[in-house]
């Protein structure tokens, strides 16, 4: 799960419960997302990288920029 990339469908930021769509188990599922560094805000539609995962459906993400 960690290291997967996904897309923000609900705004991720401090004090918010964001939502990201991640491809997993042959489908795409929505996960609750929190910023990994507690301060950054990731808007809807941006790509993220999962840096940590917590059962059952919580991920910590940071912004992912394609090189």
């Amino acid at each position, binding site marked *: 799960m960690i290291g997967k990339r996904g897309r923000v469908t*609900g*705004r991720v930021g401090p004090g*918010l*419960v*964001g*939502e990201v769509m991640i491809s997993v*188990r042959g*489908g795409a*599922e*929505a996960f*609750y997302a929190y910023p990994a560094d507690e301060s950054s805000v990731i808007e*809807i539609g941006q790509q993220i990288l999962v840096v940590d995962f917590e*059962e*059952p*459906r*919580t991920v910590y993400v940071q912004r992912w920029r394609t090189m």
Partner: protein
Amino acid sequence: MDETLLFGIGGVIFAVLILFLLLRALWRVAEPNEALIISGLGARGLRDTADSLTFKIVTGKGVLVLPGFQTARRLSLDTRVADLQVSCVTSQGIPVHVRGVVIYKVGDDYASIANSARRFLDQQDRMDDKTHSLFAGHLRSIVGSLTIEDMLHNREALTAQVRHSSADEMSKLGLIVDSLQIQEIEDTTGYITNLGKPHAAAIAASARIAEAQRDQEATEAEQVANAKKAAAWRDAQIKSASYQAEIDRAKAESEQSGPLAMATSRQLVVVQETKAVELEADLAEQKLQAQVRKPADAKAYQTRTLADADRDAQIARAEAQAREIELRAAADATRVKAAATAQAEATRATGEAEAIAAKARGLAAAEATRAQGLAEAEARKAQGLAEAEAISARSAALAENPDAVVAQQLAEKWPEIVEAASKAFGNVDHMVVFNGADGVSDLLTKALSMGGTGLGLARQLMDAMKSSPENVTPSITPSENGIPAKFTA
């Protein structure tokens, strides 16, 4: 041999059939929308479930379940729907009655399935009621943190609030909220209705404006189109009429072409007939010329020539006669002239001779007269006295018988009178007498008869003198040289 083989085949088939039925009874397959929860002998999860309840979760594949030692339960992973009806208050304090729906399911991961299986495995039918109660509270808190405008328009805020309020509890229950929809908001205060009224009024106004404008444009377009249609109809009628006129004209021309051609041909016929008639007339004229006029001309020419000849003959005859008369008159004149000339010569010679003689006689007589004068004077004196007496006597006699006196006097003087009458012709040089010889004798007769008439004349004079005898002294005195005596009164 055959039977042994047959039995062998039959036994194999039977054995396979038995095996199939056995597997069919013991083998369980988890379909994609469910999870098999297997518990019992030897049920060990692959992961760290060993330290709690030991059960095995199977998804998407089959597993052999030992009857009596193990049990397999199915947990549906299907989407579930729970209707929500909540009376609550918005963040603006407006009481609303919200009716919504939440769509959720059991999470696909093992943790969610395990949480869910522990809570709902025997209560799957009543899961909706439980989630309804759960979500009613969540929805109440969600609505309380939103305004009506956000609920109506701001879907992002709604979903964020749903996640914020329900994420932890959902994780505990192993459920995932796919969607939460607010289907209906009953607003007892009329807030929503009033919210839309300005827009509705504006939209209605703009709609009416647009309708009126479109109606106006449509009407204008319709009128323009009608005008164009009318113009087109008029043009079409005009063209149609003109074409019809052309058709009629062509038809009339074609209809008239027959009579026209007939008339033209008839005209040509008439022309030819006229020429023929003219030729016939010419022929008749030529015939007349040849048969009538030429003979008439010839006859006229003959008649004219004859008349000319006759006239010429008559003229010649008259000219000849006139010439003859002229010549005869000239001859007569010549003859008369000669005679007169001769007579004049003779008379002149006689006169001259007599003049000479008279001259000589005069000279002699003058001497004699002069000598005699004195004597005669004496004689005459005496004679006068005697004559005076005689005259007085004659006058007395004349008064008594004048005719006798006059006759006597005339008888005494008759020779002188005749001589005087003949002397009248002596002075004529050239006399033309048309009656010829008879004329001359006639002339002479007239001259001589004058003496006779002189008698009558004298008688008239005497009658006149009788009325005044003192004033009249008629006397006839003969001249000395024989010239006719002058009769004085």
